[in-house]
């Protein structure tokens, strides 16, 4: 049972890491344009796209 003492905190930490990742992506505007992002990569080949969006 003592294994729980470190396994559960590890599990929680990993979960929190994922949550923090989600928060970051939301703040970063990753969900602003779901339709555009779905097709954007198709056109992203030989010709360079405009400069990446500046971080806000």
């Amino acid at each position, binding site marked *: 049972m003592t294994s729980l003492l470190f396994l559960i905190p590890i*599990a929680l930490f990993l979960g929190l890491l*994922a949550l923090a990742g989600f928060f970051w992506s*939301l703040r970063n505007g990753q969900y602003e*344009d779901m339709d555009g992002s779905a*097709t954007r990569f198709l056109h992203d080949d030989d*010709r360079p796209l405009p400069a990446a969006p500046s971080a806000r």
Partner: protein
Amino acid sequence: MSALLLHDAEAAPATCKHCGQPVAAGGDAFCCAGCSGAYALIHELGLDSYYARRDADAGPVTSEAALALDLTDQVETGEDGVHCLRLRVDGLTCGACVWLIEAALARRPGVVEGRVNLTSRRLTLRWRGPAEAAGALAGVVQRLGYRLAQMDATGDKDPARAAEKELLLCMAVAGFAAMNIMLLSVSVWSGHAQGMGWATRDFMHWLSALIALPTVAYCGRPFFRSARAALRAGGTNMDVPISLGVTLASGISLWETVNSGPHAYFDGAVMLLFFLLIGRYLDSRARGRARSAAEHLLALGRAPVTVLGEDGVAHVVAPASVKPGATVLVAAGERVGIDGTVTNGASDLDASVVTGETRPQPVAPGAAVFAGMVNLTSPLRIAVTASGQGTLLAEMVRLMEASEQGRARFVALADRVARRYTPVVHTLALGTFLAWVFGAGLAWQPALLIAVAVLIITCPCALALAVPAVQVVASGRLMQGGVLLKSATALERLAAVDTVVFDKTGTLTLGRPELIPDARRSAEDLAFAATLARNSRHPLSRALDRAAGPGMPAAGVRELPGRGLELDTAEGTVRLGSRSFCGVVDADTGGDSTALELWLSRPGRAPVRFAFADAARRDAAETVAGLAARGCRVELLSGDRAEVVEDLARRLGIAVWRAGVDPAGKCARLAELRAEGRRVLMVGDGLNDAPALSAADVSASPATATDIAQTSADAVFQGDRLAPVLELIDTARGAGRLVRQNLLFSLLYNLCAVPLAMLGHVTPLLAAVAMSSSSLVVMANALRLSRGRP
């Protein structure tokens, strides 16, 4: 060489190379100058692969002449000298459009970033250099064939968007917490069966409390806020039992944990929040999308106006920034953007949007004109009248405010249920507690635990999801059909509709003139007249062009404003225009003298008459029949003349019609219908319909309607067809059925579970299973609406 030419001729596409619309055989490769220009620009930039990249079935790119925009006050300049401009873009069909715009902008010097958001249809432009480059950059996008419009002042700081983001964050936190607590709870539950030691169990409970308490404090805020507001207003809503249930469950679980008790409801409390937040978020997103789409339509409809400055130079500015007293120029064929008085010029105005009258109204200096009217024949100068009381718009707003009060009394079904449900549940819980303490002699702590179990089991999880789940699916289905539902309670009000009142011009009809077929006229006459008409943007000329189909314009045509078109040929002068212009004195007009008309006079031949009428929408008759089949009474209320209204009503099969009704008259008629106990859906588009739209139980307007009509309507439908009205009623009725089923199911579930809880047989495991299963059933039932007819 000749073989090559032949090959070329064969390979010449029958459709426009840019927009894909059909063009005249043997003619140009383009349908219009706009498309040709866009193609040339794309080619010049080396972006030809756009044509290979775009969807084959993407709609045609619009090629309407671009209107100049006033962008100077929209540009924001950052500290680092980078200018930023946000614009709405119309005409985006797929990712290729995004790529085209971004790639074209990236080739302009100084551009730091040009990024198109396909979801919100917005373009963000950043560039270095002069701020005045804004116009040139916007021009690039316009020349590609996309329409641009200014953003509203609110921009990104929209409160609805901020609320949606908060809900999403809350949902993510609640989801994380619910899953982790459930992980711990599952081990506790299996521990109950296999004899887990008390120390391990308490450890699990403490860990759960550590996750649950901050989560409840953070994710419960939207519910606590709403519950507090309801209580402060002296009422109650669904959020009151939710807040109470969640708070009590967390509190009693903490008490249990401190005292090393066997049961804790942390999982139930957090899972409840998670499910409810899913419902809230979906609901807000569906409504937010419909609202932003409606705003997008409105912004694009607001064409800039040309103001004549004191220095005599014409500026193009947004209608909102025109000051009273300014002089505005309105070209022939242009829509009047402001209210004012004619100071110079004489013309005919199409006032159908304002009065419902289809016959053009002659205006002379001194006449009052209103935003929305279309100037038909010659340019006008208009002095902008002072805004405020006394204008037509102010009168409409006053009428609307008066009529809206009736609608405000409507209470959503869910709130009505909550109003009855909440006291019952709270009495039950209190009764259970008292019965166990005083009746069965139990100590107060275990009795309180049982009472809390009753509250958790009856927490209206399914009940709170019952309505939003259906609403989300319904508005999604309507949006696919081109109908934007703006109001949250519109579906419920629509489901009860038994009378549909239509406006005529622009609603049952398209609001633009169409050529009336005439057997006495030959196809050759029409084709010839169309070659002249293609040189003009006058509505009647364009109607002729539409009727004749694609073809070549004649060269050397002169347009005489207010009179018509003239062409010198070898035989003499050919004229296409008004009766007097063509020298027709007394011709047989076939009995109707009211219609719009054009005459074609050629030397040595009898003049030919082209009559036009505002044609009914293609499926208007079917829609009226469909409404009757659904048990709705259909009425026609129009501001137009009696003979026109009667004719249309007869053709569409509408028995009850009234002509020459003014806005107040429309409101009065709706009040009359409502007094008879009828539930009225008003469909209208004009300024004169706006008060009636807000007076009806529920209202809809086409996307071509005036600003004020679209703002006051509950639903806006796009396209040339009227069928969305049927779809609206069908979906609303289907949704109403499903909501009632869902509510019934939730109540049934409570009826079964409450006795168990009152007897103290409900454990946290049972509560969790009951809660999630009932929520899933309700959600699954709502999803049935998305698959065909419910």
